[in-house]
């Protein structure tokens, strides 16, 4: 059946100036157009005042601070009620002084450096491996059919499961640690890029072709930038998986040659049954995870989404 709109008689069409007084000069259309543009511009230029900005900052900073204070208060109350023995639940102040002595002695900075530089280095190698892999997966059907399911499966496999194999293959070496970190991060980053590319509206590559983009220039100027939001989500998850995998590896692959990272610090606390150390280590691990997210990924994500008119939850 033919669609009705093509057969509509002219009187059902929208009434344009051309039917009654078709001598409306072209200049008038220019004026109408300029009016439409001006209307558009006046609605889009709304500047925020400093008070607005302060309020927005307060709204995003205050709630987490309040939540942390409440958590510590509950912890303090539970400790004061003495439900559990001291070696299981130390007081907040005991954990705080453990943290403080680590900071003043400078030991904490060494541990942070060992762990963070490993995680960042492993993550960057992961990006270098996963990006071409993701492009291949997204664009070559055979590759996707062959290893797509495997890669998705790897994403749900806890990377701690690779630690025993890594130790048997590489010994207790940095190589073993990087192996585990890569197996944690590469599937996330590659899958993020694949889903980013899958979500590109099909019209954009078509436009690229019309504009004369070849395979390579199309990937560089259209495919990759268009897939950036998905890719960034993959990078964010890839970082989280790198960090987790690193902690698992450091906990198990424990040796003086490897230097002391946060994982080893945590394991030492368990060896000595020193609960304040264990909790201080957990707080530091959490601190790094949140810090990288807030300082790097959150602003990046906000910038990417904002510049495209996509308002994400930030």
């Amino acid at each position: 059946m033919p669609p009705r709109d093509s057969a509509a008689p002219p009187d059902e069409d929208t009434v344009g100036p051309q039917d009654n007084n078709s001598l409306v000069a072209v200049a008038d259309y220019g004026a109408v157009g300029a009016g439409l543009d001006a209307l558009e511009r006046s609605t889009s230029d709304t500047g925020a005042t400093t008070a607005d900005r302060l309020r927005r900052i307060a709204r995003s900073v205050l709630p987490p601070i309040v939540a942390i204070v409440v958590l510590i208060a509950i912890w303090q109350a539970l400790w004061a009620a003495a439900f559990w023995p001291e070696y299981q639940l130390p007081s907040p102040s005991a954990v705080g002084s453990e943290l403080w002595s680590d900071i003043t002695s400078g030991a904490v900075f060494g541990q942070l450096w060992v762990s963070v530089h490993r995680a960042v280095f492993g993550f960057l190698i992961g990006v270098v491996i996963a990006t071409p892999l993701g492009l291949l997966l997204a664009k070559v059907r055979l590759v996707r059919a062959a290893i797509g399911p495997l890669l998705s499966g790897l994403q749900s496999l806890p990377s701690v499961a690779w630690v025993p194999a890594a130790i048997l293959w590489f010994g207790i070496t940095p190589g073993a640690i990087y192996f585990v970190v890569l197996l944690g991060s590469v599937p996330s980053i590659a899958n993020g890029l694949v889903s980013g590319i899958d979500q590109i509206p099909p019209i954009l590559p078509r436009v690229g072709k019309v504009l004369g983009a070849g395979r390579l220039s199309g990937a560089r100027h259209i495919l990759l930038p268009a897939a950036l939001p998905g890719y960034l989500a993959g990078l964010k998850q890839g970082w989280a998986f790198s960090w987790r995998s690193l902690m698992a590896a450091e906990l198990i692959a424990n040796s003086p040659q490897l230097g002391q990272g946060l994982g080893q610090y945590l394991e030492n606390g368990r060896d000595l049954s020193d609960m304040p150390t264990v909790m201080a280590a957990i707080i530091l691990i959490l601190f790094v995870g949140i810090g990288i997210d807030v300082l790097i990924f959150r602003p990046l994500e906000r910038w990417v989404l904002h510049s495209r008119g996509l308002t994400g939850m930030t």
Partner: protein
Amino acid sequence: MTATLEHRVSKPIVEPAVRLTSVHKSFGKGTRSVAALAGVDLRVAPGEFVCLIGASGCGKTTLLNLVAGLDSVTSGELVRNTSRPAVMFQEAALMPWLTATRNVELALRLGGVGRADRRRRTIDLLELVRLTGVGDKRPHELSGGMRQRVALARALACTVDPSSDTNDSDLPALLLMDEPFSALDAITRDVLQAELLRVWEATKTAVLFVTHDVREAVRLGQRVVLLSSRPGRVVQEWDVADGSPAAEAATVEEINVRLREVISSHAAA
């Protein structure tokens, strides 16, 4: 709009910008193939404005894709004597991460225009579509009509000859438009139709304009070509340049009657 009709050449003698000779296009293979176009003959002269109309399934978009070089003909001959064709779609389809200026520059860059030249030509093109002040806005900050004007500037950037010094190249330009205004509100559509006519006069580019709105076709085109559906072939052509308002209204009615006949014939078949 009759004031804009004076300079138009109704019967071209020069070599056509686009010539289709019994072009066939079918999709699929063997017995299950579907013919989209069956023997289309069409000529577009340099600088001519031709509107293609027809019901859905008449292969309007297929035809445009063939001319744009996005697809190849099954049989027949398609000759294009133009610079790189400029294409506009129903959506503006601007790159959402680029500003209006960068969107136009991207087209120039992919077309091989040097860096120093790109900036200057982008300014000219945005001025042509009267968007000088909004070059640094991103697509989501623009209205639908403004986005479509950026898309027009970007499309015209394709026709730029990188070796030539001005925006006019030696080869005639060709603008292919696939229902570019159908998603806009009535007032914006009116304004953009006038804009398009102005740009067409200024650039002397040939235009092949697909629409299903007969009135739009008659208002804009010098020639209106009606395609039949499944498979598409040319049913009839109307010369609609230089018409008085009354003559124009009569032509619209005549084309509508013919279009309805063509559509009704499908129910009978």
